[in-house]
């Protein structure tokens, strides 16, 4: 491996990247667009859920219960129904997400100290929030009128994100997703492009060794990726006000390792395919989707079936999302996080070894 030859490839690649305005623009704008979309659009918080009420009791108690719903901040009274048919229709149309049906005699039953069932109908089409809506409704109804002082109240304290803001948990996870979305894609395209246009033959004919060629490709894309990570981290902390409780050094250090890992995946993808479109789809399947769906970024891993939990271990995004959340939200350091760091390092080394091996086989 000669540095001079690596630098020559780096220079060629850098020139090609800079010449292509669209690519540069997409590479730099995309992470920010994603960050803002996620920051604002992906809110899994429930507030102002449209509530429809069919109050068949019309007593003081039933009105108090409805007030309990509207004053919780989670629900907004939208319709007051006179018949069950009207409530059904609105649920079908999606005009209300939750219908509360209070049967006649609710107030009397309560006063007599008997069980007073209340029907809560939730629109389950968007289960992401339907679960939450049901949980809040459950809490409100079971707290209602349960004013028994002798019962043990439970003290619930939420750590790391006491306001339960979804931005706070989305942004640190997003570092892992964005770095998985673009660097591998750009790298994979950069090499398959040479294959598709045939210029790779010139590379093969030159004295460049595979390792030199790959290293030369890696450096510029690694740098783009690192610019992306700094942009995203900066905007995440400054604009979205996500707290940074751990060390910035640790975050950037592991971020650098992760960037190498993702770029390595891009290299690997480029060794198994000939066309850019296929490279893109493969990159989508092995990088973006897993990092998005199976890294614990949005969906908790512990609820997945065991086999699927194993599947999530195949992709490095999971480890980095853990790391990033640990450092940013929990203020954790190396003593707690070393297993993830170690796994990430091992993963990166394996990916590179495999990519160079595959690439060398092609040359020979």
């Amino acid at each position, binding site marked *: 491996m000669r540095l001079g030859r690596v630098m020559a490839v780096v220079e060629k690649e850098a020139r090609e990247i800079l010449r*292509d305005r669209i690519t540069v623009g997409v590479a730099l704008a995309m992470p920010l667009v994603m960050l803002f*979309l996620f920051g604002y659009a992906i809110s899994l*918080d429930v507030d102002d859920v449209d509530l429809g009420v069919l109050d068949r009791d019309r007593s003081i108690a039933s009105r108090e219960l409805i007030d309990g719903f509207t004053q919780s901040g989670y629900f907004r009274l939208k319709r007051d129904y006179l018949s069950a048919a009207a409530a059904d229709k609105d649920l079908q*149309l999606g005009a209300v997400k939750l219908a509360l049906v209070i049967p006649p005699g609710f107030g009397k039953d309560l006063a007599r100290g008997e069980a*007073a069932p209340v029907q*809560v109908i939730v629109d389950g089409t968007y289960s992401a929030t339907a679960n939450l809506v049901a949980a809040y409704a459950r809490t409100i109804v079971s707290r209602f009128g349960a004013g028994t002082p002798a019962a*043990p109240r439970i003290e619930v304290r939420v750590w790391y994100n006491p306001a339960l803001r979804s931005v706070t948990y989305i942004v640190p996870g997003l570092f892992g997703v964005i770095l998985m979305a673009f660097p591998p894609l750009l790298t994979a395209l950069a090499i398959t492009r040479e294959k598709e246009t045939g210029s790779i033959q010139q590379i093969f004919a030159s004295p460049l060794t595979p390792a030199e060629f790959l290293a030369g490709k890696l450096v510029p894309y690694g740098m783009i990726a690192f610019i992306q990570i700094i942009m995203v981290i900066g905007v995440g902390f400054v604009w979205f006000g996500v707290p940074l409780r751990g060390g910035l050094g640790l975050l950037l250090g592991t971020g650098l390792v992760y960037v190498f890992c993702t770029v390595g995946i891009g290299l690997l993808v480029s060794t198994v395919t000939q066309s850019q479109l296929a490279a893109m789809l493969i990159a*989508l399947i092995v990088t973006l989707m897993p990092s998005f769906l199976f890294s614990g970024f949005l969906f908790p891993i*512990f609820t997945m079936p065991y*086999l699927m939990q194993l599947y999530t271990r195949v992709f490095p995004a999971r480890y980095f999302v853990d790391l990033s959340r640990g450092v940013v939200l929990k203020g954790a350091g190396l003593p707690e996080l070393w297993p993830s760091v170690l796994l990430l390092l091992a993963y990166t080394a394996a990916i590179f070894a495999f990519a160079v091996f595959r690439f060398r086989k092609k040359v020979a």
Partner: protein
Amino acid sequence: MAWRLLGLLAKESIQFLRDRVMLVLILWLYTVEVVICALALTFEVEDMPLAVVDLDRTAASRSLVETFLVTDAFAPAGHFSSATDAERSLQSGRARIALIVPEGFQQGLVRGQPVPPQVLLDGTNSNVAAQARAYALEIAARFSALSQGVSSRPAGAVPVIRVWYNPDQTYTSFVVLSMVALAAMMVGVFHPAASIVRERESGTIEQLRVTTIVTGELFVAKTLPTLVMGLLSVFPSLLIVWWFGVPLRGSLPTFLALTAIFLLSAISIGVLVAAISRTLQQALLLSFFGLFPIMFLSGTVAPVESMPETLQTISLASPLRHYMDVILGIFLKGAGFAELWNQGLALAAIGAPLFLLASRIFGRTTLQGG
């Protein structure tokens, strides 16, 4: 005219079918990816690792711990002897929730001056934490009703929760359907974009220019195979959907018709992208760039209702959003044209201008030299 078109169509279909890797990948998106997602993704809190610290070690404290652990929501992640140990397991992520029963819990219960047990929640995933909090509160309420022991029937208001359209409260049907919609969107955009730009990049467009083919014919030839393929791909995914037990409550022809309208807008986006990019790399990156907002503002990833008003308004321009309503409506709610004409109209309103614009730019940049 008809013969020329047929010839072109044959060429495009051959090119399409020849690329085995692509076919496998597309099939993968429509089937395997859908299966994996449907199996794995749920927002429901299940088996959340719970660290237990029982400082009381009495019958009452054990029964409280038991009440937590018998539910599906929590799974034991170890018993710890001190609160500090439990806190450490939260910090390292081995446990997501910790239940700390203080000393004197049982005594307090007997005396009627209860010492409150403490629940520590890892709030990093706010959605999970909110649900876990509701469960914890409900479990505590149930426990107190039981420990009062007056009657087995708890007094007070009792919630009877019923979830409609998706009674099992699983995320599966939603995930399956949204993945199908996403796959259609992605393939619909990528494929025409790539096939047009590739022709330009490899120079074969010059050969087409010297033939008698007119723009309209080439446009049809480039877009029709994607449309047909997009409609055909619906069937393998229908199998998957059926396999997951997601009901098809509405009618299949309605679904196909609306899918076709939706695919037209996706294809138009692809053609537009192709028209403004010079290299395949640019085209792919641009379509990626365009797909993201379309995807995020569609309700596939997060519900539209919880977005800010401005984004909700912008989301109306995302064809995927209307298509999600269509696909959820037809499958889960059994809606027909009567309920869905709104969405159909919206899809057409988004698709038509895009389609016109795409065909115009396509004509200017492709055959007449760009």
